[in-house]
């Protein structure tokens, strides 16, 4: 079982399969923390029907890999899985999965949060909202940068 699994893909992911991949034949890690991000309809006003997610293929994978390496430098982690979808996603669909296993609960929580904070501010993804009124590129949020900064980059 690979310790890091990072994937950018169009197709959906299965939470149960991801969970199994984190736990299977893993006798060391008593704590597993996941984050799942979903398409919701309140992003920046308007009635969002779907999202289009673009990314910089090549750089994205490198960037996610580097974020996971940084997390491993900070915390004792077992397995880390990061999946991010691209392309058109409808309301309610899964966008991103981050799963972390660790012998220590706090390490799993902090690493999972750290990976999400860095992914949000560093990984080259861009979201366009598709609503009845048209298409709108999402603006980056300052609050996301504040969250990322708190880890003391």
């Amino acid at each position: 079982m690979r310790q890091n699994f990072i994937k950018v893909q169009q197709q959906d992911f299965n939470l149960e399969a991801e969970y199994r991949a984190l736990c299977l034949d893993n006798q060391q890690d008593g704590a597993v923390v996941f984050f799942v991000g979903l398409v919701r309809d309140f992003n920046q006003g308007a009635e969002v029907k779907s999202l289009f997610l673009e990314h910089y293929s090549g750089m994205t994978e490198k960037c996610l890999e580097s974020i996971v390496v940084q997390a491993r430098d900070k915390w004792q982690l077992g397995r880390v899985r990061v999946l991010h979808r691209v392309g058109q996603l409808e309301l309610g669909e899964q966008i991103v999965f981050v799963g972390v296993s660790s012998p220590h609960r706090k390490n799993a929580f902090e690493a999972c949060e750290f990976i999400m904070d860095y992914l949000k501010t560093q990984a080259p993804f861009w979201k366009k909202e598709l609503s009845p009124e048209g298409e709108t590129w999402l603006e980056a949020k300052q609050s996301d940068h504040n969250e990322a900064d708190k880890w003391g980059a």
Partner: protein
Amino acid sequence: MIKILFFGQLREVLQTEILQLDINELGKLPVNVAELRVFLQAKSELWQEYLCSSRSLVAVNQTMASETNLIADDDEVALFPPVTGG
């Protein structure tokens, strides 16, 4: 040649996905990110507006770059708005 890629809103607004540029066109060498911006911004008012450092980030060879990062021949440069994944 330098390969320059555009992503997200930048790609749409500038109607440019990729640009090949002879590094010698940039005039003085070595050249850094800030100087490449100035060169590209000269194209039109739209480019002027959208390529300022407050509206676009730069990666060189798929790594985030600062304004003083030098650019060499054959580098892959990318220009894009602040990221909004996750």
